[in-house]
C-alpha cells in the first residue's frame, strides 16, 4: 500500500506547496498594488527604478530584437520559398515581432536582467538587516522597495516592448532589403498596411503585464529569501525561473484573449 501512497503523498505535498506559493505571490502582488495608491510615494526611488529597468535595458533589448527580426526574415523567406510565398516576409515579420516575439523576448530579457538584479539586491538587503533597518526608520519596505520597481516595470517595459518591436521590424527590413533583394519602400508599405491597432495594443499590454510579473517576482523572492549567500542565490534563481514561466504562461493567456475569434 505504501508503495502506492508514498508517491501520491509526495505529489500531493508538491501540489499543496505550489498552491501555497501561488497564494503567497498573489497576496504579495495585491499588497503591492494596494500600496501604489496610498501615500507616501518615493519619487527618487521611482526615477532610479525607471533608469535601471528602462534605460539600462535598452542595449540588451535592442540587440535581442534586431537579431531576432533579421533571423525571422531569413526563416520566413526560406520557408515561404517552398510554396512560392517569399513575398509575405514583411507581413509575417511585422506580425511575428509585434504580436509575439517582441513582447516575449523583451519580457524574458527583463526577467533575466531586471528580476535577477532586483531579487539579489533585496535579498542582500534582507540578509544584512537593511530591510529591518528600513522598518525601524519608519519606512515601509513595500512602499520603498517594491512599489517604485513595480510602477517602473508597468510603465517602462511597454515602452521597451514598443522599441523592441520597431527595432525587430527594422532588423527584418535590413535583412530583407540587403540580403533578399526586397524593395525598401514596398517592404515598409506592406509592414505598415498589414499591422492593425490591436496588434500594437496587444503588444504594449503584454509589455505592461510582463513588466509587472518581472518586478513583482524579483521583489517577492528578494523579500522572502533565505539566510546567507545561499539564500541570496536561491532567491535570484527562483525569481528568474518563476518570472520566465509566468511570462510565457501570461503570454499564452493574453494571446488567447486578444486573438481568439
Amino acid at each position, binding site marked *: 500500500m505504501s508503495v502506492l501512497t508514498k508517491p501520491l503523498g509526495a505529489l500531493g505535498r508538491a501540489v499543496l506547496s505550489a498552491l501555497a506559493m501561488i497564494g503567497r505571490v498573489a497576496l504579495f502582488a495585491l499588497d503591492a498594488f494596494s500600496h501604489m495608491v496610498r501615500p507616501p510615494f518615493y519619487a527618487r526611488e521611482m526615477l532610479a527604478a525607471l533608469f535601471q529597468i528602462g534605460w539600462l535595458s535598452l542595449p540588451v533589448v535592442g540587440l535581442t530584437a534586431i537579431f531576432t527580426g533579421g533571423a525571422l526574415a531569413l526563416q520566413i523567406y526560406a520557408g515561404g520559398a517552398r510554396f512560392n510565398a517569399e513575398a509575405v516576409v514583411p507581413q509575417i515579420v511585422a506580425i511575428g515581432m509585434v504580436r509575439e516575439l517582441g513582447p516575449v523576448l523583451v519580457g524574458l530579457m527583463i526577467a533575466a536582467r531586471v528580476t535577477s538584479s532586483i531579487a539579489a539586491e533585496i535579498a542582500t538587503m534582507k540578509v544584512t538587516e537593511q530591510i529591518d*533597518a528600513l522598518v525601524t526608520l519608519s519606512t515601509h519596505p513595500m512602499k520603498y522597495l517594491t512599489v517604485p520597481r513595480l510602477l517602473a516595470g508597468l510603465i517602462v517595459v511597454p515602452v521597451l516592448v514598443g522599441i523592441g518591436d520597431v527595432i525587430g521590424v527594422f532588423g527584418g527590413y535590413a535583412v530583407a532589403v540587403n540580403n533578399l533583394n526586397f524593395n525598401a519602400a514596398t517592404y515598409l508599405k506592406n509592414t505598415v498596411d498589414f499591422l492593425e491597432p490591436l496588434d500594437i495594443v496587444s503588444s504594449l499590454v503584454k509589455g505592461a503585464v510582463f513588466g509587472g510579473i518581472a518586478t513583482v517576482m524579483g521583489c517577492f523572492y528578494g523579500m522572502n529569501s533565505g539566510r546567507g549567500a545561499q539564500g541570496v542565490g536561491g532567491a535570484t534563481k527562483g525569481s528568474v525561473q518563476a518570472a520566465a514561466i509566468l511570462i510565457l504562461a501570461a503570454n499564452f493567456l493574453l494571446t488567447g484573449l486578444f486573438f481568439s475569434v
Partner: protein
Amino acid sequence: MITLTGVHKTFGTNRVLRGVDLTIDSGTSMVIIGGSGSGKSVLLKCILGLVKHDSGTIALDGQDVTRADRDAFLARFGMLFQGGALFDSLPVWQNVAFRLLRGSLKRPKSEAREIAIEKLRRVGLTPDVADKFPAELSGGMQKRVGLARAIAAEPEIIFFDEPTTGLDPIMAGVINDLIREIVTEMGATAMTITHDMTSVRAIADNIAMLHDGVIKWTGPVTRLDDSGDPYLDQFIHGRAEGPIAAVR
C-alpha cells in the same frame, strides 16, 4: 518604560522565548546578555515589531505596542544594527539623515545634511565622510555611522544589537564610551544586546540574563559579580562547567 509580560515566540518547533518578563525603566540602560541562540535578538525584534510575538504583552509606557500607532511608535526608537545595516546605495550623510529626508520628520535637504554632519561629528567622524558610500568605510566607521543614524532623530529609546562585535578592542572601547555618553546626554532609554562583558560593564545600568527563553536573572550592574546566580556566574566568567551546556 518598556514592560514585557509572558512573551512567547516559537519558530517551527524551536521555542525561542518561553515567557519573558522584563521591565526597562525610562532613562536607564539595560543590557541583555545570554549565549548564542538564546533569543536576545528575537526579543529585541519582538519589541520593535520586526518579529510578531505569539503571546504575552509588550507595553511602552503602559500601552500595548501591537495596538499603538506604528509610525508614532517607531518614531520614538533608534536602532544600531549588528552589521550597521547601512544602505549601500546611499551616501553616508543620506544614511544618517534617512529619517529626516522623508516621512513625518522630513526637513529641507540642506538642514538634514547639516544635522547628519553634526551627528557624524558627535560619533567622531569628520565631515568628509559624509559624501562617501558605506562600502568605502571600515567596519568601525560603519558602526559609528550606524550609531549616528540611530541618534539622528533624537529618539527617546535606542536599541543596540551587538554594538562591538567584529571590532578591535580599542574601537570597541570607543563605541562603548560613545554609547554611554550619548545615552547619558540624551537621557534616552537604552537596550543593548551583547556577549562582550567589557561592553556590559561600560554601558549597563541594569542587566538581564536570557537563557532557555526566560530571564534567569536581572539586577543592577553593581551586583554583577556577587549575584549568587549560577547561570550568570558561569556566563560572566566564561566557564565551560555549570548549568549552561557548553555544547548547544
